[in-house]
């Protein structure tokens, strides 16, 4: 047996709740014992559209939180934006519907062994998995600050109970409709300079991840980012979701964001080469 996808299983998961939360849907899936293997940063791949669907590929969603309850056993929470035809179909599914899922997939956020100052940065609904991460970091004695950003207030995902897991939360919107007008990167340099950040965990659009990587480039801050690249399979066999990543010897490899990610070390991603091939840029 190989180490790739080593905890992953394909099975039927029942929807136990599907609620609209602002522009997003909060979907809770009953998954049983496998919940113990699901870590913040991991994702789930879900077949969409039913048996005769013309959509042949699974959709990948970040696992935003896991829990274990007496009534449902192990459950996963997903925050889904109904944008494409697959996510719209998923958001229409009612309680009791069984979904064909594969999980847990991908890398997880690294959790420090010592208490550190962690800054969690989320763009849009990319904030969803950060709340589950915040709870884990808090339980390890870390200080957890959070910055959330979006184009407009309606696209900010910040549940009440999630806010309790963080020491501070600041919201930035480009139109100023909620929180401060601006971007999440605006206050970041000052925070890094005064030494109040050891690790940044980020999840959101690639442009945001790149901007954070550029900012922390000359500092000692570790940047773990959850990348987003179009995937066909989610399990490492299709080679579509690759990103250029620098190896220790200085060479570049095209790594799969499904099995070598989604969580990657931001300092190793060759952001300027995304969408190109390394040979062509030399």
């Amino acid at each position, binding site marked *: 047996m190989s180490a*790739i996808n080593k905890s992953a299983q*394909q099975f039927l998961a029942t929807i136990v709740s599907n609620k609209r939360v602002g522009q997003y849907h909060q979907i809770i899936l009953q998954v049983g014992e496998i919940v113990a293997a699901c870590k913040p940063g991991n994702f789930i791949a879900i*077949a969409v559209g039913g048996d005769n669907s013309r959509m*042949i590929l699974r959709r990948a969603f970040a696992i935003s939180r896991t829990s274990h309850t007496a009534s449902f056993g192990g459950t996963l929470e997903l925050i889904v934006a109904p944008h494409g035809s697959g996510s719209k179909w998923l958001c229409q599914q009612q309680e009791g519907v069984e979904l064909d899922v594969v999980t847990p997939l991908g890398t997880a956020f690294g959790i420090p062994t010592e208490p550190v100052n962690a800054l969690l940065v989320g763009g849009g609904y990319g904030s969803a998995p950060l709340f589950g991460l915040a709870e884990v970091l808090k339980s390890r004695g870390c200080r957890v600050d959070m910055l959330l950003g979006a184009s407009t207030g309606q696209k900010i995902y910040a549940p009440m109970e999630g806010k309790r897991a963080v020491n501070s939360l600041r919201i930035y919107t480009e139109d100023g409709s909620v929180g401060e007008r601006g971007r999440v990167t605006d206050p970041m340099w000052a925070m890094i300079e005064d030494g109040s950040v050891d690790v940044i965990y980020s999840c959101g659009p690639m442009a945001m991840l790149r901007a954070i990587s550029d900012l922390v480039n000359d500092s000692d801050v570790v940047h773990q980012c959850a990348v987003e690249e179009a995937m066909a*399979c989610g399990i490492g066999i299709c080679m579509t979701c690759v*990103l250029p990543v620098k190896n220790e010897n200085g060479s570049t490899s095209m790594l799969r964001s499904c099995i070598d990610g989604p969580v990657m070390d931001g300092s190793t991603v060759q952001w300027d080469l995304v969408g*190109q091939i390394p040979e*062509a840029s030399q």
Partner: protein
Amino acid sequence: MKEFDFGTNLGGAWFPAPIFTASGCASSGKELAQFFALKDIGAVVTKSVMTKPRYGRPTPRMAETPSGMLNSIGLQGPGIDSFLANDVPWLLEQKARVIVSIAGETVEEYSTLARKVRGISGISALEVNISCPNVENRGLVFACDPEASRRVIDGVRKTIGGEIPIIAKLTPDVTNLPSIASGVVDAGADGLALINTVLGMVINLETLRPHLGGKTGGLSGPAIRPVAVRAIYQVHEALPNTPILGMGGVSSGRDALELILAGASGVSVGTASFGSPTAIPTIQNELRDLLIAKGFNSLKQAVGYAHREVS
């Protein structure tokens, strides 16, 4: 009752079951091994490998289409030396049967690759992929040119001797597929892999430009299954004694049976594994049940059955 015989033969190589991975759709097997035992399927056909490590094409590399998808990977891979040193031994340890797929930019590169494969024991067959659509120069799609196809297969045949069966992978994107097929069989191919993906394009309505980084891509999935059935039927009709490894949009046992009835002795499953990591063993079980339900005593009885006169 006599036991049902599910085994199949491709150019002298025997396989206990007829469902295979498709080259480029299973990497080198490690990723799928979590979901089923690789030894339980017919064979693992590995991703086409070239002489040197290769980055492939820029992203985006994928677009979903109605009942299908376009891919534009461009043969990203580790290169033949790393592949033979690391991936093949691992597959053989799993007791999987291995068909190595090779791709080259020149006739000579194919021969070089064949020479390296020849030096490794335990490989069941060699797939010579002369039809990858995702190369920079469409002129490099050897299988669009009868003479170039022949020269590649001839070079590989001479290099490899009679030790390993050669399966030539062809594209349906030609005017006269049976004539290309005849040419490569005359040049020494023991079998044919039909079909590679069909060349296509998607235009992104936000950028108003081709969506894929490589502009064009290969169409796969259920959308192309009728093209595969037609191609296999035509080639089996022209070359009834040449074994065919069929592929193209198979996602169920009934789909696999269609390709077998058209003339395929084995069936590769590619894109269906992207949608479901357990697709291959599921399809294999469905096919077995279906063949028995239709009254066949063996897989071999069903191969090319659609060509028989209705009595």
